[in-house]
């Protein structure tokens, strides 16, 4: 039996929406509910409607009958769109929350990493936080002492180790937080999307560290949206959708299925219930849509054509100057750009209550191909308030043209790079072995005039 590290049999998790989204209720609510619900149920019975406790609380199944096994030393990726149940699965396996049904058995010491820097306290120094965070993640004190220098070196914060972390830059903070986590040495490691932080160089360092963890024969469950990382680190990947296991197999095959199925991208996201929408009492996001040039909703766009990102939002408090903005990440988690709404109509003007739609058009021949993840946000500049920033609200695929009129030209193989702008090229034959300065300035002039 010991050739199995993790065995999951029919795990399900139910969330009662009413309870979960209210967050908490007051004693009075419970008392009134308790008083009223029998009458309500009796009323339904009289009217001949089906009844039951389940009806009173709307329930959703975050996971439904999930079963699989993982062998010791296997590195398994878990992918799926938002809300597919990936994080819930990790939370159940790390015993943060209990399953509603089912059974799971884990053989070995479990370390889980659902967030970096959990339990960091801003008033404590880097040194103190290493000990505290290490203990929270399940390290023994002796173990932390042994690895202390290594952790500090990995985080590159030697000089500031006795400074309270509230004075750290966000990069230093993340590096330190990840460094502690990266030095966990359990037999089974559960990792949620923690690599989507920090700069690209640091992300690479983290990925390398993860890779070496895998090579040491440890069992790893790795949740990520980062498809290249999944295919690189994991030999096997499980695709979850709506709480079910949809595919389970070799990573490259499952990832390809996922990317082609359209599951990975949702071009529309709507929040029908305003109370649950992202935002605050000033403004709430109602919907985000990706539109092609002709106005239809598109989850895949031609690299040569512009694509519009439409945000629909409701202003609930008048008098605020609002500035919609967008972030775009690629599937590797690299921030491609941020952009603010410059429309003079509502720029720097306090807005009355009501519904608004802002659309930003991304020009054609700018983005690289692949999945682009759209993060709509709403800011007020003075005073500086971030009303919401829904990091991965919607996504779309950028499809490159093979007709030779995009930046790739006649190159038919994978083309790296974050952007893929179509440059203005000019090639001249210079039989004398040199070109003239005049030609260069003339070329620059042409460029300037035509691109804008």
């Amino acid at each position, binding site marked *: 039996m010991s050739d199995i590290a993790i065995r999951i049999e029919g795990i399900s998790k139910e969330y009662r929406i009413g309870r979960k989204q209210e967050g908490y*209720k007051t004693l009075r609510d419970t008392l009134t509910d308790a008083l009223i619900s029998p009458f309500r149920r009796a009323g339904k019975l009289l009217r001949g409607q089906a009844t039951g406790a389940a009806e009173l609380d709307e329930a959703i199944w975050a996971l439904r009958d999930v079963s699989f096994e993982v062998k010791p030393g296997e590195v398994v990726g878990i992918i799926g769109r938002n809300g597919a149940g990936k994080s819930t699965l990790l939370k159940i396996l790390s015993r*943060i929350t209990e399953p509603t049904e089912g059974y799971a*058995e*884990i053989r070995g*010491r479990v370390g889980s990493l659902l967030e970096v820097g959990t339990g960091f306290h801003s008033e*404590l120094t880097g040194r103190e936080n290493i000990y505290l965070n290490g203990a929270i993640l399940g390290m023994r004190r002796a173990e932390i002492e042994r690895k202390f220098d290594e952790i500090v070196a990995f985080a590159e914060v030697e000089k500031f180790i006795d400074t309270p972390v509230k004075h750290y830059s966000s990069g230093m903070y993340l590096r330190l937080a990840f460094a502690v986590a990266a030095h966990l040495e359990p037999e089974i490691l559960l990792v949620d999307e923690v690599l989507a932080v920090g700069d690209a160089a640091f992300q690479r360092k983290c990925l390398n560290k993860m890779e070496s963890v895998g090579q040491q024969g440890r069992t790893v469950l790795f949740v990520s949206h980062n498809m290249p990382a999944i295919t690189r680190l994991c030999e096997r990947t499980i695709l979850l959708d709506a709480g079910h296991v949809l595919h389970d197999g070799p990573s490259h095959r499952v990832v390809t299925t996922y990317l082609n199925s359209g599951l990975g991208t949702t071009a529309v996201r709507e929040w029908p219930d305003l109370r649950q929408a992202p935002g605050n009492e000033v403004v709430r996001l109602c919907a985000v849509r990706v539109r092609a040039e002709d106005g239809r909703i598109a989850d895949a766009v031609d690299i040569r054509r512009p694509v519009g990102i439409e945000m629909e939002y409701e202003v609930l408090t008048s008098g605020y100057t609002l500035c919609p903005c967008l972030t775009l990440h690629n599937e590797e988690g690299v921030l491609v750009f941020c952009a603010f709404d410059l429309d003079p109509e509502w720029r720097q003007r306090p807005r009355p209550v009501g519904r608004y739609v802002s659309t930003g058009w991304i020009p054609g021949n700018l983005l690289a191909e692949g999945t682009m993840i759209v993060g709509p946000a709403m800011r007020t500049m003075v005073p500086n308030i971030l009303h919401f920033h829904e990091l991965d609200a919607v996504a779309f695929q950028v499809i490159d043209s093979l007709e030779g009129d995009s930046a790739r030209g006649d190159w038919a193989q994978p083309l790296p790079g974050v952007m893929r702008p179509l440059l203005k090229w000019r090639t001249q034959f210079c039989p004398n072995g040199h070109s003239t300065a005049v030609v260069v300035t003339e070329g620059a002039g042409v460029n300037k005039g035509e691109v804008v």
Partner: protein
Amino acid sequence: MKTALETHITIIRPSRGWVSLRLHELWEYHELLYFLTWRDIKVRYKQTILGAAWAIIQPFFTMVVFSLFFGRLAKVPSDGIPYPIFSYAALVPWTFFAHGLAQSSNSLIDSANLIRKVYFPRLTIPIATVLSGVVDFTLAFIVLLGMMFFYGIMPTVNALWLPLLLVLALVTALGVGLWLAAMNVQFRDVRYTVPFLTQFWLFATPIAYPSSLLAEPWRTLYGINPMVGVVEGFRWALLGTETAPGPIVIVSCLAALGLLASGALYFRRMEKTFADVV
């Protein structure tokens, strides 16, 4: 590797009804308990001007106010001991209790982020907050020793019982704290109830007055409020008040243990919902 794999088997399945306290697991995490306590102590007076002086200011000034109003004006009896030290000897363990109670009942909510992201026995959170109050207690206690010196009162041999009485205060604070912390996750009413409860409890405990005002069967029964045992015990051990509060303390110990056991069971029962609701 094989033996390690066989020793650590985690079984995950939905729990139903009352569950075990899993004290052995709590012991496995004793280092975390130590670090959480240490963090609470370190962080408590950060960014305050007066810092740890707060630990002394609160009981001391309450004593001054009590001495003025209850001692001077109302002429409340104090078992033949100068009123200021009579009330301060009670206020020192009381402040420890009241702080422990307030901090532990909010502790889960203050640690919501931890609860949602990491697994460890949740009992460590309220226990650590109550334990961290021992430092404040020690500071206030030193002032108490100073006052005894000032009034020329020598501690009796009975002072050896003090650690036990402190544990009694701790158990009481934790017992009630566990109940309130677990309820607070679901019902935020608790947050508003605690200050009221503490105030009520303050007057239900013989701090401003002696329990000797009560006639006998009632005085012992009064020990059902465990803080009565603590407070009278402190006075007896340090100031040498005449009657030994033995029966009171025994009643108080039983009541405190009852609170702790029921609090811990209720806490464990609610624990599975914490991460989803907090």
